[in-house]
C-alpha cells in the first residue's frame, strides 16, 4: 500500500534542530528507507511564509499570501512510501526525527 507521510512541526523548532545537527538522524532514516526500497518520493519544503494559496470563487481566481491554515505548526516536508501495511508505515513515520518535536500524519493513498 502507498502512504503519504505529512511531516509537520513548529517551523522555528525545526530550523533550530537542523542547525543543532538533527540532520544526522535524518540521513540515517532516509538511507534505511532507500535500502529497503520503500521510498517513492521524498521532499522537504521551503518554510510556510513562501506559501501561496489559491481559491476560485464564482469563477474568480483568488490568490493569498501564506498557507491555507495559519498556525505555528506547518508542513515542512512529505514522503511517499510503498509498504506492506499501516504498521510498517507507522514504524517508518516513527523513525523520522521530526516526530521527536513535531508529528507525522499518515494518509493512505487512494489506489
Amino acid at each position, binding site marked *: *500500500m502507498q502512504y503519504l507521510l505529512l511531516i509537520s512541526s513548529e517551523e522555528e523548532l525545526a530550523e533550530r534542530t537542523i542547525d543543532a545537527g538533527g540532520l544526522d538522524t535524518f540521513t540515517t532514516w532516509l538511507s534505511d528507507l532507500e535500502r529497503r526500497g520503500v521510498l517513492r518520493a521524498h521532499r522537504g519544503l521551503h518554510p510556510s511564509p513562501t506559501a501561496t494559496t489559491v481559491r476560485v470563487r464564482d469563477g474568480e481566481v483568488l490568490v493569498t499570501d501564506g498557507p491555507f491554515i495559519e498556525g505555528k505548526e506547518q508542513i515542512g516536508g512529505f514522503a511517499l512510501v510503498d509498504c*506492506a*501495511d*499501516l*504498521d510498517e*508505515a*507507522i514504524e517508518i513515520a516513527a523513525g523520522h526525527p521530526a516526530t521527536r518535536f513535531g508529528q507525522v500524519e*499518515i494518509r*493512505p493513498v487512494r489506489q
Partner: protein
Amino acid sequence: MSDHSAAVGAVRDVEQVLTESFRNDWGRVVAALIGMTRDWDLAEECAQDAFATALSGWRRDGVPDRPLGWLLTTARNRAIDRIRRERVGVAKLRELAAVTAPEPEVDLDALASGVADDRLRLLFTCCHPALAFEAQVTLALRTLCGLTNAEIARAFLVGEQTMAKRLVRTKQKIAATGIPYRVPPAHLLPERTTAVLGVIYLLFNEGYAASAGPDLIRHELCEQAVRLAALVAERMPEDAEAAGLHALLLLLNARFAARVDAAGALVPLEEQDRSRWNAAMIDAGMTELRRALGRERTGPYQLQGLIAACHATAARAEDTDWARIVALYDELLALVPSSTVRLNRAVAVAMASGPRAGLDLLDDLAATGEVADHPLLPAVRADLLRRLDRPAEAAAAYRLAIERTANRAERAYLTLRLAECVDT
C-alpha cells in the same frame, strides 16, 4: 413423556444449544471468515446467515456432532456463494479458492483449531492504536461478542444511528488504511497487548458498574469481558498481566449474584452474602492468579487481582486483611497514580485504621485536588462520616452523591443510607 412434549423439549434443546453456541462461537465464525475473505461486512452477514440456517436446519435434522464446524462450513460456503453471485470479486474468489480448495473433504478439527488464533487476530485488529478507543470497544463487541448495534448503543448511551455510523467508519478506516489482520510481531506485542487488556478491562467495568441506566450490572458485558480475557490469557500464556486480568475479572465476576438485593439496590462488599459468591469461579480465579504471579513482573492487573483475592478468600467481611490490602494499594499507586486508586486506597485505610484516618486522608487528597472531582468522592465521604456518627454531615454528603450518580441501583443504596442518617 408424550411425543408432543418430547418434540417441544427437542426444540428447546436446539434453541439452548444455539444460544450457547452463539455466545461461544459467534466471534470464532466472524474471525475465521474475516481471515478468509478480509471483508468485515461479508463475514458478519455470512455468520448471521449460518446461525439463522442452523436454527431451522438443526430443528429438522438435530444438532450436529460438531456445531462449530457446521457453522464454520456453512458460513464459509455462504461467503463463496455470495462472492460468486455478486460477480464483483473474481480475484477474491480465486484467493478464497486457493485457501480452501485443496482438500475435497474439509477437516473440521483443523479448521476449528486454527480459529482460536483468528479470534486473537481479530481482537488485536479491533484494538489497533490507529482506531479511537470507543471504536475499538465497539468493534470488539460487534465482531467478537456478537452484540447488536442497539445493545452496544445502549451500553454506551448513544443513539443506534450514531453507533451504526461509528461501526461503518471504523471498518472503512481499517480497510482504507491497511490495518493488518494479525497478532502483532514480538517487538510490538507488549504495547499492543496493553491496549487489548485495557479494552477488556473497561468493557468489564462498564458492565460491572454501569455508568447509567436501570441496572447496576450489565452482566452480559461482564461475561463477554471475562471470555475475551480468558482468550488472551490462554493464547498468550507467557503474558503475566493477561493472566492477571483474567484472574481479576473472574474474582470480581464471582460476586455477581450477591451485589444487588431483591429490590435492585447495590449491596456493599461488607454486607454481601458470601455464600452466594460463585465458589467455582473464585477457584478458577485463584488458580489463574497463582499462574500469573509465577511470572516475574507484577503489574496493575495482578495487583488488583491480589486485592480481589483478599476479599474472595475472607470467609466473613470482618476476616478481611485490610492491612495487606492497603499495602497492595501502595504498590498499585506507584504504578498507576490515578484518582480512583487513591480513593480506593483511602477506603482501605479507613477499614484498616478506622474511619477517622480514612477521612483525614480523603481531606488531604481533596485539598491537593488529587481526587477532587472524582464521581465517587461524595459517596465515600458520606460512608466515612456515617461511621464516625456524624449523621448531619453524612446526610449532606449522601444527597450530593445521589445527585452525582445516574445508576439506579447505586442511587437506591445511597437513598437507603440517607434515610438511616436522617432517622437517627
